[in-house]
């Protein structure tokens, strides 16, 4: 008998391994992609969730600030700056609430009693007591917030509404509390 040469198979696992056909490949590919999308999606969801605080100590957007007589004529009241970010100003005609956000880039200006102006420490914008801008780069006056009287005679400032001078909104009724 002629000796038969044993020819080794080309691959060790031939026949036993799962040969990927076209369909199998496609389904693996989609599973892989789904897993990838799921993982990245989950990652970004968690990441974005992280940007929102669990607890917010945010003061209410509309609040009572006291009775009209609590405010002196010609004075800028800075008591509400820290908590509510408004200045309450009373002049001869009435009371208005100015937002403390600089209209240039959003810093918080300071009220300078001596110079009678709000002055921004970031790029030097200056605003008059009324909120009108007159120096530095701020392109428009400070915004005013809605202000009106509650049934009990107290003043309510509502920060959800703001009035822009350049749109002529300071004429509107709630931008100003006539006394």
């Amino acid at each position, binding site marked *: 008998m002629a000796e038969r040469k044993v020819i080794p198979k080309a691959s060790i696992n031939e026949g036993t391994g799962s040969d990927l056909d076209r369909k199998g490949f496609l389904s693996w590919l989609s599973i892989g992609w789904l897993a990838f999308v799921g993982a990245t999606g989950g990652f970004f969801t968690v990441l974005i969730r992280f940007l929102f605080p669990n607890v917010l100590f945010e003061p209410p957007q509309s609040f009572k600030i006291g009775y009209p007589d609590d405010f002196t004529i010609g004075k800028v009241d800075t008591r509400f*700056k*820290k*908590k509510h*970010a408004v200045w309450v100003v009373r002049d001869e005609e009435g009371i208005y609430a100015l937002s*403390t956000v600089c209209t*240039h*880039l959003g*810093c*918080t*200006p*300071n009220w*300078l009693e*001596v*110079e009678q102006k709000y*002055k*921004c*420490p*970031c*790029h*030097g914008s*200056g605003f008059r007591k009324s909120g009108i801008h*007159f*120096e*530095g*780069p701020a*392109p*428009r006056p400070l915004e005013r917030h809605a202000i009106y009287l509650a049934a009990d005679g107290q003043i309510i400032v509502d920060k959800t509404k703001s009035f822009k001078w*350049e*749109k002529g909104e300071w004429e509107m009724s709630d931008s100003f509390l006539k006394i």
Partner: protein
Amino acid sequence: MSYIKSFIDFLSAPTISFTLLTVAFPFIFPPSDYFEKKNRQWGVYKLWTNAGGFWVFVLITLFFIVGYFDPHFNLTMTKPDNIPIILMIYSMYFLTWLGMKKAYANDERLDRGEKPEEWNDPDDKVLVWPDLVYIELIALILFMVALIVWSILIPAPLEEPANPAATPNPSKAPWYFLGLQEMLVYFDPWLAGIVFPMFIIFGMMAIPYMDVNKKGEGYYSFKERRVGYFIFMYGWLVLWVFLIIIGTFFRGPNWNFFGPFEWWDPHKVVPLTNVNLSEYVWVKLLNKGLPVNIIARESVGFVAVIGYLFIMPILLAKTKLKHLYDHYGPVRYATLMLFGLTMFALPIKMYLRWMFNLKYIVAIPEWFFNI
């Protein structure tokens, strides 16, 4: 001493120091034959010799020594935040000096018909590994050591927790952003905070495509690309580094300007009333009220801006810069002009603000569009 100090205070007011620098600049980095001649005649080039470098170094150091013993400047100078700026002044000067010294040495060699100093025999090469990488490794380690020692010796200042209702006065950006903060004094945030920084980055990326001069490639040389040197150095040293220095040392409470030896008086009153161009034209010049129509109101400003940015380059291409235009072709010329003119818009706007209290050329707060 106090006379000298108040003289320095006087000189450092931005109107004066900026003007002095701008006027002196073409003599220091002469972009044309005329300035070159003056530069030689007055010996300005000696700045880049060993002796010149030494004396400027002594001068800067003297300033800081005097400043250290001055009760007011001491406060600004020794603030941990500001130490990088002091280092920056020295390193900026040193590197400019070194580059210019080498460039001048090469210029002389080229004049004699020799090859520049950095010219290498193409066959004589060094290897990245290990030659270069070793140097980098050593530099890295030294740098780390320096940073660690620095952070131990001068702890970073920790401030109170952030509070949106209390902005520190003056409120300063990190030192590398103080140039931007200075620009913000003169421009609307979308311009100074977004458009200009993007222009700076894209402009720098575009430099190799605009300046295709093969000379001076791979070696220092001033003479072979003096206009490029001049423009770049002006933008870099005056419009960026100098603005950082102003922002660090010369800006005090309420972002008012203070000389180095002046007391930071929080109640310093600088009378300023800024006026928009439209108001100048319609109210002060024509004695009419502002037109109600926004476009009509700002038409003068639009004409000025479009004229400056678009019409002027076209006219220049036909007249004074015809040579450049022919050489560069329309695309490259237009790019160069756009970036170059935007860069020079900064000093122009600064001067308009200082001299005429001009706030915005185009002012449309209704649309958040101000230039």
